[in-house]
């Protein structure tokens, strides 16, 4: 490290310099460490579940334990990995750099958001240690408010607190993107990752407070029996579902939109081309963010919600599928006449394309009223959202981590092993979750600790796939850590990529840019050959 120029990592070494840092890049590292921890905690729960489901009888753990496992698996991975994952790590690091700013608009709020996140996480871990919670991550009343005798309030408080870190992150991004773009960086010159983060921030700001108040009311219901959600004293449990899904459906887009942003960056770079239909991809992010708020009732077609409300929510759900389809088609078209190199990030991005397509298409099955009656609350739903959240978000997250790893740490990861790991993850993922579609249509309900015998073959296949997937996730963990010391040194721009973040040294200096950059060209100006436009 002797001859390395000063950067944000080596500028200072003490604990304090990290724990009190206001540098968005260091806060991103703090987030990276914390969410990686939660990823493996949540993944550990998943491993236990898949082992339990190898046999129909439910003989590894007690039913109570199993119920806690799937609850904590969902809670930890949704609230502490998927939602903060891409925005708080890659977004935090990249948003200021991509728009040519020296930091986010509110550095103190940024640090505060990490502390809030950690506090919420500690609450949740405390609840796990104290015995866990068994309501499912959806906290449906009246089970959660009256019948469960597990640590509902502690876990709810954990989610409640973490929500504020999400709000602060969204607020910071929104203001930063509005006010701090470098001279010349007009909206249509922004990288699509920024558009995606902007759309995500909107959802964080508008949705998260609703889950906060809902959890608050749930806690009050549990403590004082206020009656709002309690049917035994005149309340309506379905109202809880409305308020819960008003946030929790858009929350899915909090997870997937930033992932889509990453995919746009990676595909443009490794096809060496401007993203096909840039404006359509940009606006489809906004369309998803806005339309995403109109569809929550599709989780409630069988809840006792009115049939007519079901009709409205169904048609709106089909509409929100369109902008996602538009994105997929545009990414595919971007490859046309490109100059494509299959690096590790690109492998993840192409894997994302396939898996997200399947995840999105199976969403149509669930939006369709008559078919949802059969597949609702079965493994079909489980498979669908894992295709989006694991096949989509986690693939994109890993792709993004590899893509920007040299920028963040100034080291290259080992390319060959990384490609191998990407392929293992892709295969393992499909083996794990494709059988679950079949299981769901066969009628296996979700959240079953034991099941009837005819479901066993598919469950064994799924568990086998999960072991491959788990191995695939461990590999990057190992070689990425290894690369921190022993990886090849990366130059400022190892991919020869466009975008302001690549114009700084790797790792970047604390102030990002010595001189505020002036932007004179569109995003992804890879200097393509002028050719006759086909199609």
């Amino acid at each position, binding site marked *: 490290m002797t001859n390395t120029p000063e950067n944000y990592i080596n500028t200072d070494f003490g604990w304090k310099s990290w724990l009190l840092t206001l540098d968005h890049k260091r806060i991103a590292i703090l987030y990276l460490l914390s969410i990686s921890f939660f990823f493996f905690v949540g993944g550990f729960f998943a491993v236990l579940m898949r082992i339990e489901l190898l046999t129909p009888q439910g003989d590894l753990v007690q039913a109570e334990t199993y119920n806690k496992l799937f609850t904590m698996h969902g809670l930890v991975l949704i609230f502490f990995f998927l939602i903060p994952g891409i925005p708080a790590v890659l977004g935090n690091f990249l948003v200021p750099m991509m728009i040519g700013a020296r930091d986010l608009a509110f550095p103190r709020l940024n640090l505060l958001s990490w502390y809030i996140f950690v506090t919420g996480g500690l609450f949740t871990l405390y609840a796990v240690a104290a015995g866990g919670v068994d309501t499912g991550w959806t906290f449906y009343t009246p089970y959660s408010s009256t019948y469960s005798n597990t640590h509902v309030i502690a876990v709810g408080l954990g989610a409640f607190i973490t929500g504020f870190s999400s709000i602060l992150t969204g607020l910071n991004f929104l203001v930063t993107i509005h006010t701090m773009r470098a001279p010349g960086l007009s909206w249509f010159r922004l990288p699509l990752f920024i558009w995606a983060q902007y759309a995500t921030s909107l959802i964080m700001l*508008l949705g998260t407070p609703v889950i906060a108040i809902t959890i608050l009311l749930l806690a009050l219901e549990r403590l004082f029996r206020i009656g709002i959600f309690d049917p035994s004293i005149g309340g309506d449990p379905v109202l809880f579902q*409305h308020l819960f899904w*008003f946030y929790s459906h858009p929350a899915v887009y909090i997870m997937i939109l930033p992932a889509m942003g990453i995919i746009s960056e990676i595909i443009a770079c490794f096809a060496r081309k401007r993203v096909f239909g840039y404006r359509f991809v940009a606006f489809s992010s906004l369309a998803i963010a806005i339309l995403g*708020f*109109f569809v929550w*009732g599709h989780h409630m077609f069988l809840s006792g919600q009115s*049939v007519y*409300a079901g009709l*409205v929510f169904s048609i709106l759900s089909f509409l929100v599928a369109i902008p996602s389809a538009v994105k997929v088609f545009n990414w595919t078209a971007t490859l046309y006449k490109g100059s494509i190199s299959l690096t590790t990030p690109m492998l993840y991005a192409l894997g994302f394309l396939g898996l997200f397509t399947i995840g999105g298409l199976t969403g149509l099955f669930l939006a369709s009223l008559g078919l949802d009656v059969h597949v609702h609350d079965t493994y079909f739903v489980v498979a669908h959202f894992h295709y989006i959240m694991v096949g989509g978000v986690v693939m994109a997250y890993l792709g993004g981590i590899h893509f920007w790893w040299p920028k963040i740490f100034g080291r290259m990861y080992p390319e060959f092993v990384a490609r191998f790991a990407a392929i293992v993850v892709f295969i393992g993922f499909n083996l794990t979750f494709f059988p679950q579609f079949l299981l769901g249509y066969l009628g296996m309900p979700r959240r079953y600790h034991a099941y009837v015998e005819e479901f066993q073959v598919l469950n064994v296949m799924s568990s086998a796939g999960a072991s491959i997937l788990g191995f695939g996730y461990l590999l990057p963990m190992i070689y990425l850590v290894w690369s921190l010391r022993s990886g090849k040194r990366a130059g400022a721009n190892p991919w020869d990529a466009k975008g302001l973040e690549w114009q700084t040294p790797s790792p970047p200096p604390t102030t990002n840019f010595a001189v505020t950059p002036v932007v004179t060209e569109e995003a992804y100006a890879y200097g393509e050959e002028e050719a006759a436009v086909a199609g």
Partner: protein
Amino acid sequence: MSGHLVPLKGYLGIFLALMALTAVTVYVAFLDLGPMNTVAAMTIAAVKAVLVVLYFMHVRWSSRLVWIFAAAGVFWLMIMIGLTMADYGTRDWL
């Protein structure tokens, strides 16, 4: 940045208008107007809120972005109430 300087009289006028509207809404609440009671109460409240937002919170003299933010809050609240009511309002249609 120092923002728009509202004359003292302007603030006082808004204040008096708000107080007058408060008096009106209390008076109207005691009349039996059937469903119009709700409409009247909510309309008056909305007018009062708009006065506070436009003048006391200076939105009248703020950038377009602030207008959009303020409108977005109202719009999303309407989505939440409206679509939830779409369920409760039509439950016994079938």
